[in-house]
């Protein structure tokens, strides 16, 4: 009988543990008592893929009911990493639960030597205005040869290989719809 580690833990955590133990032919009680002490026992479990290199290791994310991140660990069922992780992947928890994260949009005015916090609405409004102003001022309908090019060369964009596929597609879509041709990201370098 083949059991994954997670199924094994699930079995051991149920009332049927004793029966399961009989099926398995060995005593699950030590595992049960260990699991009972874990803070992830009643945690919600979701799978994710490591956000660092492109090996694509599986990671299990444990959260409280409130959504608070409790822990991350290598996914033993994932065929590539089989539960193993490198130092970065093993520390994934700390990228999210981290007091150094920036919480609100920041704005630096021309010639200023400091950041100021601004509201999202204001940031989006201001950036959108900058885009329109720059696009309209630099938009080229025809190049020197008279060929239709419909582009703006006043704005460039880089990033990002850290985005999800769906975000990448959307981003290329909106940038190209706005007429950008200078679009690049990590893959180039």
């Amino acid at each position, binding site marked *: 009988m083949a059991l994954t580690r997670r199924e094994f833990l699930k079995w051991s955590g149920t009332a049927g543990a004793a029966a399961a133990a009989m099926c398995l032919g060995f005593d699950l009680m030590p595992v049960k008592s260990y699991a009972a002490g874990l803070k992830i026992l009643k945690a919600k479990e979701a799978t994710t893929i490591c956000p660092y290199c492109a090996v694509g290791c599986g990671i299990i994310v444990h959260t409280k009911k409130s959504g608070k991140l409790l822990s991350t660990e290598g996914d033993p069922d994932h065929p590539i990493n089989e539960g193993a992780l490198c130092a970065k992947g093993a520390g994934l928890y700390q990228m999210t639960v981290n007091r*150094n994260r920036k919480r609100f949009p920041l704005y630096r005015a021309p010639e200023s030597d400091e950041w100021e916090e601004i509201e999202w609405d204001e940031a989006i409004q201001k950036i959108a205005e900058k885009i329109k102003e720059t696009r309209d001022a630099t938009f080229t309908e025809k190049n020197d040869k008279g060929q239709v090019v419909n582009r703006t060369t006043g704005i460039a964009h880089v990033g990002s290989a850290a985005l999800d596929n769906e975000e990448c597609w959307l981003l290329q879509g909106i940038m190209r719809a706005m007429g950008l041709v200078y679009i690049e*990201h990590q893959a180039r370098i």
Partner: protein
Amino acid sequence: MTNHWIDIRNSDCILIMGSNAAENHPISMKWVGKAKDKGATLISVDPRFTRTSSKADIYAPERSGTDIAFLGGMMNYILSNNKFHKEYAANYTNASFIVGPKYAFKDGLFSGYDPKTKKYDKSFWAFEKDANGVPKRDLTFKDPRCVFQLMKKHYSRYTPKTVSAITGTAEADLKKIYETYAKTGAVDKTGTIMYAMGWTQHTVGVQNIRMMAMIQLMLGNMGRPGGGVNALRGESNVQGSTDHCLLFHIWPGYLGTPKASLTTLADYNAKNTPKTNDPLSANWWQNKPKYMASFLKSMFGETATKENDFGYSWMPKIDDGKTYSWLDIFDEMYKGNFKGFFAWGQNPACSGANSNKTRKALAKLDWMVNVNIFDNETASFWKGPGMNPDEIKTEVFFLPCLTSVEKEGSITNSGRWMQWRYAAAKPPRGPKGDGDIMVELFEKVRSLYEADGKFTDPIKNLRWDYVKDGKYDPHAIAKLINGYFEQDTTVKGKSFKKGTLVPSFAFLLDDGATSSGNWLYCQSYTEKGNMAARREKKDPTGMGLYPEWSWCWPVNRRILYNRASVDLNGKPWSANKNILEYKDGKWIGDVPDGGWPPMSNKEKTKRPFIMKPDGVGSVFGPGRVDGPFPEHYEPLECPVPKNLMSSQRMNPVAPVYGTEADEHYSCDPRFPFVGTTYRVTEHWQTGVLTRWQPWLLETQPQLFVEMSHELAKLRGIKNGDMCKVSSARGKVEAVAMVTGRFRPMAIQGLTVHEVGLPWCFGWVYPKDGGDSANLLTSSTGDPNTRIPETKAFMVNVEKLGKRRA
């Protein structure tokens, strides 16, 4: 990767060169280890004895920037000792093709070179064709104008003695490695290559990879388990972001960005759709018009019609002959030619070559938007070293985003597996998901254009039915990427209702009846569900393909070019390497590269390399801008007075930028040592995500410069001393790490020292942790791709004093 991570275990010989898998892709070593357990040999070639080297059966050092010389010598060994896989090379590569009379090679230059424009006319390298327009072949390889003979002649110049004098690798080491790797030319053996930026970040980056691909083709290692050409990609979704083409030269699915001269879709299709006269060539790219029309339908939805060329003219065009690459962006920005700039999920002030040029360029902008989780050297460039905020006019917006466990979507790993991630943790108050930021920003821009503005068509017509109530929905976009039938349609005898998801790209059409945001991902999200979320762990072939775990492009094919893994009768070249077999009229195993019968069925077969117009692997590559055969050239900055192979010191067509920030020197006593950059396990890329994490920072707290005992003695430096490392373009302060892992090399009668620095640090955080090693690197690059040459440059190292407490 043509293959995938688990497949490494099927290899008999693993060459790790141009990468340091043990430290930068640590879990990949699990599969290297499994191969070794079964008797495989691991070879590590690296300027520095890395942790990968420590696991290797054979290690040899080489000077940075000399890989073509190293591998050219290997090709010479393989061809002159008949170690290649003859039947494979004859049938599945262009080694038998006859090259036209205009092809020539002399003193480092191929024919067709124009010294004024520094460009080649590639028509000089065309194949000779028969009356039907099919390339002529000599399957015996005897014709002196066949690729095999030209290649043999070309690489006969790469003798062990010459190669050793260029690379600094001992002749005995070269011999041992050549002999060992060439054994994978045996029919029952396969060898693989694991490379990364150590090969790509050069003025000969593309030809480095081609050189190895040619070796893999000649040894019969392509398409086979334990073989292939495997790029170890460095970012979790850099495969996906490349596939979706956040790049100037391609649109999603590798559709070339239209040039200004191609004014209609018909012009584009005529120019960009490859043609073949060979009835045995599948020439899969002949389907490009279907993918192009389907992409435009996904961009503009119902407003894209046959009558308006599906909105082709709404899309921005690039000028013929001009590049808009990373290096060009920062060159133009440095010259003050941009007003606005987005650095979205990226930290160019540290990640790009020649960081001083990049940082000065940012100061010339009117406005910049940076989206990131943490503060970084790009966002805060205006208060960085050497900057005077009072004089910098750039308005900067920093938008905080979510981490990968706080949002939902897919990423594609190096083995092309598209894997789904879930929103597991509740985001903190404040930051927003990148997708939501994109939606909000574009909706705002569109609303501003409601009243007036330049050329509003593409902004108003951008398809937006996948956004509901201003909310980003990854499932809706994943479906759009897969594609829909846009009307009731019958294709290939099957009828589909409007609004149905397209089952695979074989059903895409060029008449507007289908949409697909990216044809390569068509089949990833179908009426059967979200393929990327699958977690079924079956392995029917026993070769580690796991076909129902996630999904991989194209059409869930786990090993590319897999029909080259079988002989002409459809049997695996050897029974121990079986991922695919033609049995009882059908293919068993991996998803084959097309369902045609094997080559012995001359009526119905197609050649295995279906993406190539000739249907075979290109050992002769007439499509590259710098020559059909890789040739050794020195990096822009090098320690030797001349290139031993020819009088062309550097790649004659490599771009060299000319601002005062682009100074470069070779053989200059002020910068006598070779420099290179690398990464450490504990940090990721520029360190923007990892330096802020106390656990990781504690393990790797600051910049170091690694050097040999000999160099340290020469400069009076002790392990732990603070040093200044400088190049023509910048300087950094770093702690000396004196090890036996770098050794001086004897090259052209000179003693050449090489030093290395990780590029994961930056001035923002931690304080006194050091700055980016890219302050030292140069902004030249490969002429095909314009990837910067950040892996080989010249530096000086001086002692500053004892390490700070």
